């Protein structure tokens, strides 16, 4: 069972990393989300895999570790905040550059872009 669980974390990480390295914002966001699934599962599993051991006092005889659960619970919510923020960053990039490339531009020469930036900041 542990092997399958470990493979799942590996698959999430691999897919996440691959998408993280893409050139457009949307795949990167998806990649980050996959990666955070992997990380959350990894943190959670540091309390080991146990079935039927929910840490509710009096509900069972053998409790699983509640601490990683509490940590992962906050991690899930923070992860959501981060995803939302990155998505909005991508949208803002789309609005400002009319393009969803992660670098803010596609193929125009760098020097031209730089002078534009300088003009903007000069104003």
């Amino acid at each position, binding site marked *: 069972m542990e092997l399958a669980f470990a493979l799942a974390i590996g698959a*999430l990480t691999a897919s*996440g990393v691959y998408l993280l390295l893409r050139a457009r914002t949307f795949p990167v966001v998806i990649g980050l989300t996959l990666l955070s699934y992997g990380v959350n599962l990894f943190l959670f599993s540091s309390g080991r895999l146990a079935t039927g051991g929910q840490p509710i006092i009096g509900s069972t005889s053998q409790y699983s570790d509640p601490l990683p659960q509490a940590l992962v619970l906050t991690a899930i919510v923070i992860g959501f*905040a981060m995803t939302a923020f990155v998505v909005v960053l991508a949208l803002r990039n*789309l609005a400002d550059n009319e393009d969803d490339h992660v670098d803010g531009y596609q193929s125009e020469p760098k020097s031209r872009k730089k002078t534009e930036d300088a003009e903007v900041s000069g104003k």
Partner: protein
Amino acid sequence: MSLPLVVLLPFLGALAAPLFAQGGRTAIAIASSVPAIIALAALYPHWPTLADGGVVLHSYEWLPALGISFSFRLDGLSLLFALLILVIGLLIILYARYYLKAKENVGKFYSLLLCFMGSMLGIVLSSNLLLMLVFWELTSLTSFLLISFWNHKQDARRGARMALAVTGGGGLALMAGILILGNIVGSFELDDVLAAGDLIKSHSLYPVALTLVLLGAFTKSAQFPFHFWLPHAMQAPTPVSAYLHSATMVKAGIFLMARLYPALAGTEQWFYMVSFTGMATLLIGAYVAMFKHDLKGLLAHSTVSHLGLITLLFGMGTQLAAVAAVFHVINHATFKASLFMAAGIIDHETGTRDMRRINGLWRYMPHTATLAMVAAASMAGVPLLNGFLSKEMFFAESLQLNLPGFWAWVPPLVATLAGIFAVAYSARFIHDVFFNGKPVDLPIFPPHEPPRYMKIPVEILVFACIMVGVFPAISVGPLLYAAAAATLGGNVPEYHLTIAHGFNLPLVMSFAAFFGGLLMYSQRQRFFDFHARFKEIDEKAVFEAVISWLTTSANRLTSRIENGSLQRYATLLVISVLAVAIVPLTSLGVFIGENGLSPIDWPTLIGIVVLILCALATAVLHRERFYALVLLSVVGLLVSLGFARFSAPDLAMTQLSVEVVTIVLLMLALFYMPSWTPIESSTSQRVRDAVIALAAGTGMTLVTLAMLTGPFTSISEYFLENSKPGGGGTNVVNVILVDFRGFDTLGEITVLAIAALGIYAMLKNTVLTPPPGDGQGHAWNRDAYPLMLRQIARPMLPLALMVSAYIFLRGHNMPGGGFIAGLITAIALILQYIASGMIWTQHRVPFRYHNVIGLGLLFAVIAGAASYSFGYPFLTSTFEYIKWPVVGKFEVASALVFDLGVYLTVIGATLLALVSIGRLSPHSAIKSNKESA
């Protein structure tokens, strides 16, 4: 108290001095001398203790955990340096009064001068090495400002920058050295370090610590090959040169060697590093001084040479040599400071420092000439003057070194050669300036004697030169003894301070140097011609070139790595993580820990296989963004199922609700974005990325496998035992969140709030036009708010709110709580937005979500702070059981208020984020603007 006061006084004076600038130069000079006079008076009562070899310690705690204390220590050595700093400082204050012009910024000058004085006193009086380091850096900074006092001159700015770069760099090395020393000894207090000499010298890190400390000392004291900054620092006003670059700052490195002498000296490494550096500096300085036409340039190189001489004496390692070194510190300070002041007077009265033009000044300023000639004679080592005595000791010591064979000849030869140069450049200073024909084309002609009081400091110093030279035992004997005793840790050898020791080898060397030097000077034209054959290296140009080369290559490297491409950063980041992890990972291999694998559970396995397939499919199909999103949601659902399966009901519920919100969020974003990702990267790049991704995935798999099968101990016993009796709840996860680790949760919801407000700010006034269709020719459905959805969604709202209230209230004991309840409420409201549109919903939910967030944080903080009023620390919770009619026994915990804060913050943050995105399209923007208007 008096020692910290001595250090503090000049700094206080520095603050006060500019206030007197309005009153003119005399007023500010008098005001500036007050701190130095009080400091001298405060040191005076300690003399009897110090003369007996005693130590005065004043210590105050500062950062005891780091071994840093505010402790000061006075012994013979620090007294000697403190006296040099204060007495010469006073003379400089008087001298500068006449040197500076009335229109110059005298307030700044005196303020900086006093700052420098305080920093120097701090170095010599600190008992804690780290405290000393602080003052050490302060002298670098204040000297930078003093050298660049005339900051309209480019040369002054460059010279100051060079001095700062060299001495500041040395300061960093010194810091590392001191940290190592402190680590070896276990204390940064001087007494402990000095007592641990044997421990330090036998430690394996001794060579490293020694090298680093010496780097600090050598850069500060302008030792070869770092000597080049000192001549360029001569761009400073002459009082600064006289003070910093003859008597005090350049002596700080010497002081450091003397101070740490018992802890570091006496080994072969010390001998070779210090004595050879000193020897090289001695010769190079003396040689170059001969060829300088600039009056201050000659003095600067002669200073370099004398500093080399003192360093060489310390490097010899014998006790007598150390005594001679301390003695020469005094003598050099007196004659060199007076020479600098004389040079300043000449510069002041003639308008130039070029010795090819300044000739025959004896006729115009005989008084100054007499003073300068006596001081220069002392520099040359003429008998009956103080320079002669210490030089004689130096010659004697150079003969005592027991080096093998031919090497035994080297130190005496070098010493005599340096002596010849010293006599030659001193002769040049006397003959060229005051005799040798008539002045050539002086900017100010005819030159006059300077104001009466400008000569007084020079007179006092020259008088000291003669007194020490004729009556050494009476004038300087006790002070020298106390300083030498402190340097050597009490073992002072026998020595005699007399005018002459009779006819012996050192005297022969002196005579050889004297006549050799005069001969050399008389033949100077040949040497000048010889020297002119070599191309002179301009250290400043070299330094500037090196600096600009460093900055351009740093820029080039930066722009190569940091080219503005996020894709590249991400790749580099992942590759570096892999590079760090690869060694431990390969040695780990496929590792199954002692707990082994648990048996396979088929339904779970099927779930995991589907999860893996969907995760991989998301990556493979990511160009079709909508498919990728659907697959992602499947992964998320399976993850929450996994949590449920492996005993984490709270996590399962949280994951499920977050999943819903995330997918809605991404759908919303996709509405504005292209629905298809073009192929941009080459095949090879994709293969490379796939390899990186596979490596990362394999690494995570191996780590997880090793962790899951390894032995397991947890600190959670405490939480499980105390959850009910201490926190009043049976849901341990929730109790941890709102009680045990409540402060974490408070921080976390604050982050959530900040993220939501950031989203709001980022999208405010931004307009995005969604593409008209899905990019493949299909237009969007015209029916934005389908009837069926509307009809189902509306009755759902009260039901969902009720469920969320239930989840919220039971959270302390059963799976649930503020996070989950907040997300459920948020989803219920989002459903209304989706089904009925922005305007309809906004009308009926008239909250500003900013306020909801604020209210939530307020609740959380109040719940935490309330415990103060009962005398408990922040966020201590309490609980009570209440019997309600019908409902029965019910528990009210103060943590519930905190959880309410969490609940409200989650709702506010989630909705603010989603509504901000929903508002983006021009359609809804116009409408909502109308509404708010």
